[in-house]
């Protein structure tokens, strides 16, 4: 059997898997994390959507950034993101990752997270309620179905630019580039 054929044939269950098995790293950057426990416990029960908090980025495919991103945490965010296996999806939770939110003029806060890592979806609000997470998850499903949740592909493609941005904000990074800077994975 042709390998491409096989890939196509395998793709559908894989996509299903990506959709219904979103194992998430909740990155507790700020106050947003307070909304996560209700969402995964008995009150809202995220597990019925297949969303399950996991302990390490290696096991996850959903990255939920809950709250403002300081310069210091950005380093950890990038590191965590790079350690997640592909395909992986990022969702910014709350206003702060989008544009800084109430820290819009803070010298120490990253205003636009998507300059540094690709973000597939945003949940606006300060704070968004737990239901908003599920809205985001269902949106993400649609995006995955349409192959539009392609943040990880963008990251690979524009890695040089991302890396430059990252280094601009953080100075020299300790770890070697994830992809070769030439753009090839």
């Amino acid at each position, binding site marked *: 059997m042709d390998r491409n054929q096989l890939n196509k044939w395998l793709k559908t269950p894989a996509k299903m898997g990506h959709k219904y098995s979103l194992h998430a790293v909740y990155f507790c950057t700020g106050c947003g994390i307070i909304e996560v426990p209700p969402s995964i416990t008995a009150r809202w029960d995220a597990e019925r959507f297949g969303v399950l908090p996991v302990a390490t980025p290696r096991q996850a495919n959903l990255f939920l950034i809950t709250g403002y991103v300081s310069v210091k945490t950005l380093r950890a965010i990038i590191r965590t993101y790079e350690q997640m296996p592909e395909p992986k999806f990022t969702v910014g939770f709350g206003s702060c990752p989008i544009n800084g939110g109430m820290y819009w003029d803070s010298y120490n806060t990253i205003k636009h997270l998507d300059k540094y890592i690709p973000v597939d979806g945003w949940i606006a609000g300060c704070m968004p309620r737990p239901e908003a997470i599920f809205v985001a998850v269902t949106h993400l499903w649609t995006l995955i179905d349409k192959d539009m949740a392609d943040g990880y592909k963008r990251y690979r493609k524009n890695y040089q630019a991302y890396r430059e941005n990252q280094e601009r904000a953080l100075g020299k990074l*300790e*770890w070697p580039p994830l992809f070769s800077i030439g753009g090839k994975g």
Partner: protein
Amino acid sequence: MSLELLLAAAFGGSLLTYLLGKISSGLRDGFAVFVSVILVAMIAGLYGKIGAVTSYYHFMGLELTLRISPLSWFFAMAVSTLGALSVIFSLSYMRDRERTDFYYLMMLLINASMLGIVFSGDLVSFFIFWEMMSWSTFLLISYNRGSALAAGMKYIVFSIIGSMAMLIGMLSLYAVYQTVNIYMLSNLVSSASPGYLLFLLIVFGTAFAIKNAIMPLHTWLPDAYAEAPSPFTAVLSGMLTRMGVYGFLMIMYVIIGSVQTLNMGYGLLKFNYILAWLGAVTIVIPTFIAMLQNDAKKLLAWHGIGQGGYMVLGIAYGTNLGLAGGIFHTLNHAIYIVLLFMSVAAVQYRTGGERDLNSMGGLIKKMPIAFIGALFGISGLIGLPLTNGFVSKWLIYKTLILNGSPFLAFTALIGTWGTILSVYKFLHNLFLGQLPEKYKDIKKSPVNMQIPIVILSLTILLFGILPGLPLKVINSIIASFGFKSLNVTLWGIVSETGSLNTINLFAAILTGCVIIWLILKTGPKSVSASQENTYAAGASIPEGKYHYTVDFYNPFYRMIKPYLKDFMDIFYFKLAGWTQTLCNIVRKTYTGYVGHYVTYIVLFLAVLIFMQLKWSLW
């Protein structure tokens, strides 16, 4: 080819090696390898001559003989092979060290005396070779100086105690039966009174228990193993210590005979039962103490004690399964412990003699062959299926369970689980985990270290998958002791109460592995990641800057540490202290004051006269 020639070659070879070393070191190395390999070939060639007896010398009116029995051939083969591999291994390990000539002389001398021990047809030659082995071992244990000296002292003191006990037994046999020939004795002794036989078993048993490091007499071993030069530690642990097992077999099953030995005592106080329990204790406690060790060689040394317990348990239990298991375990243990010590030695060679487990790690990428050796070694040590250690342990367990000794079986089994903990720590702290920065540029082990490691690793696997090969020889040994032979196939044991089939196991595991590997292959190709690219809560790890293979079982230590002191060692140290004090008190007799000395003379005279008047001594 006769046995005298063999021994002459062995002893002469060692001396010649020493002399050649004075000429050129290359010549010496080559000759040492040549001698040891030739010995292997010669012994292999002796296989057909089992039963041959030669009388080689008359010593003080005694006829000294050499003899090949299946048992001695088996041991000799193991001794010579492992000796040859150790010599090959030593070539680069010992390069650029001082007194290399001396090292090779002693190494080959020890090898030769071990061959002498196993081929001895009478107790006097046995004793002579035994003593030669003891003192040459002492010299070689002390070779590394520093703390090795204390280890050497400990060894030789225990060793002399053992030989003296053996001397008593041997000479009392001679006094009673007017012969020291083992095979003549075996006909004569069986009619002796049980009390005398017990005496023999105890005195000889003491000697062999010391050599085999049975529990209350084990304390010389950890230090000696740890401090001896590593390639020699391999020999020491592999065969030299196991001469004790040979001795036990000889006294229990050859001289006294299985019928008498196994009927010694009553009920639970049977001799072999007590010995088996000593073996069981020797399994459990040292294995757990091994967990507390942070010194790679000491850890293995404690396991050496523990594994010795299995052998004694097997042979003391006195069933054909147990006996086969004990003997087979001796061989297996020799193979894997030699392998393990060689791996450690390879690491030591490259890291500059480092033995501290807490300061190493991650060497798997730098020294893969040494790692493979260690991996196979610990698999054998644990007794994972498909390694040789499994088969022998299986035999021992089975006989223990089926003959109604579940507690012995329990101690033996629990020893295995203790073993896993400590050997995994050993493997992990040496080869896995993060590579410290100072070992970043470490090189692979040299080829002559790799060859023995690879050979031994393959042997472990071979005997694990086809245990029938050695078990056939072992069958002839236990048949010569008067036991029923096992129903051995090439790949296991056939029996009604549960048989073993390693080839099935092998096939199953292999198939399983291949299938899973194929499944893993169908997934997306994984990317390899450096050791720094590991999850640390989002923090990045600067290269080589963190290292954590320290205190691996700390929570557990907190629980068991107070119970796992080496109480016997403490006791012996106290005993030595008391002896010292006693000696100091005794020598105060010689006060230096002449008046006292004159008093002694007068007193002596008075006592002499008084005693005669009182008791009429003459």
